């Protein structure tokens, strides 16, 4: 039996998208109106995708997952071979005026395949072999993104792997081992992978006044923008930080700061509540699902979106280094918006196929 789609979830999504468009409109004067028009088109395409995917039967997502995962990997390989380079990252296909980012879609396909694989096995903790499969599925795709190299998108594969292992269940000692491994990996990354400008960003988090006009400049500007929003905000289109004297990325990575300056604590609270509502409804879809596949799939989506929201806000507030992770549904960007809407469509499908009265 099938239920109606979750109106609360839809309401949260529409609310976030609305706030996003208001913000894009506020910066449109500086960045060109065509961005706003393009984002509107993406929003329409995203909503359509959401509604279409919510009609698909849940078990189909499990059965088709391997194929979708294969297509996702193929897209990542193709973009490495034939993609366009933008600011040093080979991660885009250009189709006319639109650009398409395969790494955003590959994450969704990875998520589907991990959920399908975990959903097939019965209860009990994961064996090391099984855990390795999860890590390999996520790591394979993430490695291809890391080659582009796109640090921000690569990092968003991390919650998929961690949440997958957590839901599958690992013996306690394995978690301890994993944390130790993460520390070692972090050390290696710091010494041999990160470029000087990336290290500078990390150091800036630890000491914001370290270089107020250099590496710390963006975050400092972001804090000034948020802080000067005050209680009720300066009004859309009036924030001096967002209008002028501000650095790039105000429509992508730092879009939240623009919103915060314009609408103040009131608007920030409303937006955070909308995100909380969205994650809560996704969680409900998961907890009420009647198959292991449904639970895992919904919680993986929730983990991924929560991770992006937390890391982006952490960055905007100066708690985390700037990594280029966008705010889902809010930052400008067609591929990210479309893949998020697709994931939410899948969640709606889980909600519609839940059992009641069990």
């Amino acid at each position: 039996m099938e239920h109606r789609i979750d109106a609360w979830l839809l309401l949260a999504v529409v609310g976030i998208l609305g706030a996003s468009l208001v913000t894009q409109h506020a910066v449109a004067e500086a960045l060109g109106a065509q961005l706003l028009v393009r984002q509107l088109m993406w929003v329409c395409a995203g909503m359509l995708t959401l509604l279409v995917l919510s009609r698909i039967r849940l078990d189909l997502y499990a059965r088709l997952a391997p194929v979708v995962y294969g297509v996702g990997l193929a897209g990542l390989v193709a973009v490495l071979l034939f993609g366009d380079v933008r600011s040093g990252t080979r991660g885009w296909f250009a189709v006319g005026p639109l650009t398409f980012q395969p790494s955003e879609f590959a994450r969704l396909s990875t998520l589907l395949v991990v959920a399908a694989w975990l959903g097939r096995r019965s209860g009990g903790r994961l064996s090391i072999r099984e855990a390795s499969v999860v890590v390999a599925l996520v790591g394979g795709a993430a490695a291809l993104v890391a080659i582009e190299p796109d640090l921000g998108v690569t990092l968003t594969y991390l919650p998929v792997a961690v949440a997958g292992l957590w839901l599958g269940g690992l013996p306690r000692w394995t978690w301890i081992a994993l944390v130790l491994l993460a520390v070692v990996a972090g050390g290696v990354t710091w010494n041999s992978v990160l470029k000087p400008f990336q290290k500078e960003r990390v150091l800036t988090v630890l000491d914001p006044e370290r270089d107020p006009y250099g590496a710390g400049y963006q975050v400092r500007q972001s804090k000034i923008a948020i802080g000067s929003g005050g209680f009720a905000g300066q009004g859309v289109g009036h924030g001096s930080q967002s209008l002028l004297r501000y650095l790039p990325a105000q429509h992508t990575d730092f879009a939240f700061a623009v919103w915060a300056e314009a609408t103040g604590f009131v608007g920030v609270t409303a937006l955070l509540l909308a995100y909380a509502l969205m994650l809560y409804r996704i969680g409900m879809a998961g907890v009420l699902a009647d198959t292991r596949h449904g639970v895992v799939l919904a919680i993986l989506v929730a983990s991924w979106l929560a991770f992006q929201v937390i890391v982006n806000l952490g960055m905007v507030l100066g708690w985390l280094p700037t990594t280029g992770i966008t705010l889902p549904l809010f930052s400008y960007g067609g591929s990210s918006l479309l893949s998020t809407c697709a994931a939410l469509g899948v969640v709606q499908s889980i909600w519609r196929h839940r059992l009641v009265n069990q």
Partner: protein
Amino acid sequence: MEIREDLTPVRRRAVILLAAVFLIFGALHLRMAQLQLVQGLHWRRMAENNRLRRLPLSAIRGRIYDRRGEVLADNVPTWNLLLFPDEARHLDRTLLFVSSLGVEDAATLHRRLDERGIDRLAPLVVGENLDWRQVARVRAHQSDYPELSVVAGFRRHYPLGRDTAHVVGHLRLASREELDADPDLDPTSRVGATGIEALAEPFLAGRPGQRWVVVSAVGRQLGVVREESSAAGRDLGVTLDARLQRVAAAALGDRHGAVVALDPDSGAVRVMYSSPSFDPELFSGSLSQRDWQAVAEDPDHPLQNRCLQGTYPPGSTIKPFLAVAALSTGVVTPDWTVRCSGGITLYGHRFRCWQRWGHGVVDLTRSIEGSCDVYYYQIGQKLGIEGMAAWLGDFGFGRRTGIGLPAEADGLVGTPEWSRRVRGSPWYPGEAVSVSIGQGPVLVTALQLARGYAALANGGHLVTPHIVVDPERARTVDLELDPAVLAEVVHGLDLVVHGEHGTARSLARLPIAGKTGTAQVIRLQEGVDSNDLAPNLQHHAWFVGWAPVEDPKVVVALVVEHGGGGGSIAAPVAGTVFSAALSNRDGGHGALPPGE
């Protein structure tokens, strides 16, 4: 019905995960409250004291040196006034203040403000070449108008001024198309407009940079956020001889005309002066509409470089080339003679010699020495118009020399085919008679003529004139002339200066070989004396030649517009240039720079 598996453990883990997420959300929200509610005032004050500016860093343009290292184009420091319009509290008041400085009127400022792009961090250059009083006034009112900023810049300076205005060229503002094509340019960027400045633009121009700075509310710079440093352009050494250029300019004086001097072996340009000239620094600052109109609409066309844009009938200076043609093709021998009685009748029309009473019996060398027209009427008949055109083409007439400077003229060598195709009228046989003495449908530039004579001087090699040494472009074509033929013609050109009947006997003290020319602007009616003509109908006066005769070091081609006789007007001016060039060589200035 299958037995439902127990989903409790996975649900429990899901709830734990969600709880963790909401915990972090709560922490984020608390942080927002701290920033916006507790510290809100503090941050708002920071916002007001926080302005980011993008300062353009202009690239210093490369200097231009002559062959001895004398500076032809330099940069001098200057003060420019920048306006950051978005920082202004009362933009109208600011614009009023700027216009009161006298750098720009308010209407123009408003128009430029409207045309500005969307880059809000970039300033508008509202004044250039500020004097110290203007700088002092801006500084005094700095706290009233923090959106104004005086910055140091550079202005192009041409030490030789009018003497090199055409050949060195000047700058102009970048056009809209150039701005669209090159993101490095801004609306106040200047690019080479003419002369060497245009020819060597990519070499001379550097790459501008920019610097993002944070300034306080009163315009004080707090720190540099990011900087892309500018790259200076490269200095350029050219083949010109500044000393000789000055002599040529002074020798020509107020007369309109052109002087070109080349190294006959390489084609390196030593002198290129066009008169009347103009002040090139007129274009270095912002040029007012009035100044521009005054220069552009001057009936004397001072902006035109007559050396390569002015085309004139060559007159008698064409004769040596036809002599080479006639000897080389064998239609005459050096001993062949003509009796000149002051004219000849061809096609039922009387063609006169300039020497009304005739030259008597004339052979080839004497025909050059005395510039006998009748001799060349006959040679022209023997060669035919096609033959003459082909040989003139070999010597480079009728097409650009390839010097690389903008707007070079082709000149013209008329043929029956040209007449049909371009002029759309039939060719008259009498026109060929005119061509044989350099009149009618044949037009040359001073540069073409200098190159042609360089070929006579250097043993028959047609060089490519150049100002910047460039091995790729400096092609030389061997015309494969018989040395005996050349020797015969050179002997005639020697006699022009040193023979007892030579038309340039006044220069006999100098080791020159050359040819005078008097090019008619209109055909003289029977019985009219050329001295009675109106000034703008007077003949053009030519002198073209080289020195020393046996060891040619310099070729000079000189035309004086409406000057009158080549021997009486052009030859003395050329003599001044030649003696300067020769004393140059003997004056112990040292060896020529390598590579020329």
